């Protein structure tokens, strides 16, 4: 291999790492993205340098260039058109393309590979990259369809049994094949495994519920990274190995963070399992106190510091821009407004932050859960909009509650809490919320967006 190509791949690897490193502060993140993108361009250009030394047939080069041009243009178009609320779908879709690429690579390489001379380790790596790529591809497409509301959850027993059977087959068939116990050709073997993996990808995401989507997206992202790394081993390409491993690491870290924030183990999420709610908790009478919009407006205008706890309900109602307006309005009157964001708010990790950033809210006012909890006693009023389980004090006080142990935003420790709710329905975990009955808590019933608009209108009049 050409020494320039080696150096190019080295630069690409370092820039991926540097890019990710710069992602750790909002100020430098944009630069980080550009560095990683530049590294990617270097890696691709270097690959062409590598080709130059060989004798390459023209049609192949033409196809490569056309494919790159089309992919780049379409990607740019999709990226510039997407709504921020639809970001999780888009990321899933792009993830599917990465997985699909790994799958096709595996299939083609399986036809080209010389079975008699190639090392068995390469065949195994090839198989693994194909399997992971296929699972990531169909899994991401199902995740995309679910996020876009095109596919419903499917928790039928047959889906779960089917997915487990396929998973077992994915392990057993290759074991038998490599032990020489299966009398089929390598090609048929590869196609069989590819097919099973594709089917497994579909069945494994189907039963997973809506609020568990952040975990699934992170996990699928991680799987694509692993597929890339495995494929890098097949080609002996270090930029691919390193890039793939970094993505795998990012995905798995986010997966575990999301699981922890939801108080669910990864296995339970994957199995689509839920704790059965014991109905005993609902029997307690709660003293619900409702509040009117004009009262809220008055109290807001006399407050010094308020906090807003946004949940997914806010994003569904497209209310983030109204939150931005409310913040601007209150700030112009000397009221400080912070946003306290639970790690699982939104449909993918960090989704709510992006939605609020879109509404022009300064990131200094976006507080993470722990920071928000420390400041909680200083807030004169906390507005909970479209969130429920993440503010339920039962997570700390009631060991028999399904949400027990889940990290929560301790809004009940503030001076006053107002929860905007559509009705008395329960949250995703299906439990009643002890917060509503507390002395410092008031409820405002109605559509979150309408209520926010009304508050803003009345504030303007004061």
């Amino acid at each position: 291999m050409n020494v320039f190509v080696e150096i190019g791949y080295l630069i690409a690897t370092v820039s991926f790492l540097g890019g990710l490193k710069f992602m750790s502060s909002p100020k430098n993140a944009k630069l980080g993205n550009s560095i990683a993108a530049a590294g990617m361009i270097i890696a691709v250009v270097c690959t062409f340098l590598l080709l130059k030394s060989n004798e390459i047939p023209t049609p192949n080069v033409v196809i490569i260039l056309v494919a790159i041009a089309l992919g780049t243009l379409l990607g740019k178009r999709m990226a510039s058109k997407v709504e921020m609320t639809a970001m999780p779908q888009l990321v899933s879709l792009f993830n599917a393309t990465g997985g699909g690429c790994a799958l096709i690579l595996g299939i083609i390489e399986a036809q080209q590979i010389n079975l008699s001379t190639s090392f068995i380790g390469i065949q195994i790596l090839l198989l693994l990259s194909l399997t992971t790529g296929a699972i990531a591809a169909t899994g991401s497409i199902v995740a995309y369809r679910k996020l876009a509301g095109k596919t419903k959850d499917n928790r039928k027993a047959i889906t779960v049994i089917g997915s487990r059977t396929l998973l077992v087959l994915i392990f057993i068939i290759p074991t038998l094949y490599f032990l020489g116990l299966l009398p089929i050709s390598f090609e048929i073997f590869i196609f069989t495994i590819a097919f099973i993996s594709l089917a497994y990808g579909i069945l494994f995401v189907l039963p997973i519920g809506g609020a568990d989507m952040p975990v699934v997206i992170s996990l699928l992202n991680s799987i694509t990274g692993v597929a890339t790394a495995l494929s890098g081993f097949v080609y002996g390409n270090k930029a691919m190995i390193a890039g793939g491993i970094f993505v795998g690491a990012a995905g798995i870290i986010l997966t575990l963070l999301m699981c922890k924030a939801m108080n669910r183990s990864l296995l339970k999420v994957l199995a689509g399992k839920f704790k059965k709610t014991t109905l005993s908790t609902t029997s307690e009478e709660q003293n619900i106190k409702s509040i009117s919009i004009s009262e809220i407006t008055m109290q807001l205008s006399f407050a010094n510091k308020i906090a807003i706890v946004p949940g997914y309900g806010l994003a569904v109602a497209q209310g983030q821009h109204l939150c931005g307006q409310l913040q601007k309005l209150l700030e112009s009157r000397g009221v400080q407004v912070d946003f306290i964001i639970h790690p699982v708010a939104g449909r993918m990790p960090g989704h709510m932050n992006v939605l609020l950033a879109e509404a022009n809210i300064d990131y200094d006012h976006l507080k993470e859960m722990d920071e928000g909890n420390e400041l909680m006693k200083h807030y004169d009023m906390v507005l909970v909009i479209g969130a429920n389980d993440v503010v339920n004090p039962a997570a700390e006080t009631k060991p028999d509650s399904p949400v027990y142990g889940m990290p929560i935003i301790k809004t009940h420790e503030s001076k006053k809490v107002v929860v905007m709710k559509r009705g008395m329905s329960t949250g995703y975990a299906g439990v009643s919320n002890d917060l509503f009955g507390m002395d410092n808590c008031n409820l405002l019933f109605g559509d979150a967006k309408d209520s926010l608009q009304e508050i803003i209108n009345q504030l303007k009049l004061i």
Partner: protein
Amino acid sequence: MEFIQNNLEIIYFVIFCVFIGIEVIANVPAILHTPLMSGANAISGVIMVGAIIMMIQIPPTNYVLLGLGGIAVFLGALNISGGFFVTGRMLKMFNTKK
């Protein structure tokens, strides 16, 4: 044993990558998790490099494989460009006071 000896360099490389990757990414604050994920997603598009290497090995008369390979390159390019553009677009919104 022989396998380990022959591939020692790559084994070191993988282990370092895993630890460095985890170390770097664990420091990313929750506020940036979405851009981190879509950025990482774009990086996994480096698989297109593999697709290009593979494309030159395909005989120019094997149209089926050429077509498939073309799709692979297309998907890789889509992943890369879409991922980086959308990350850039998101990060542009994370402004501090103007």
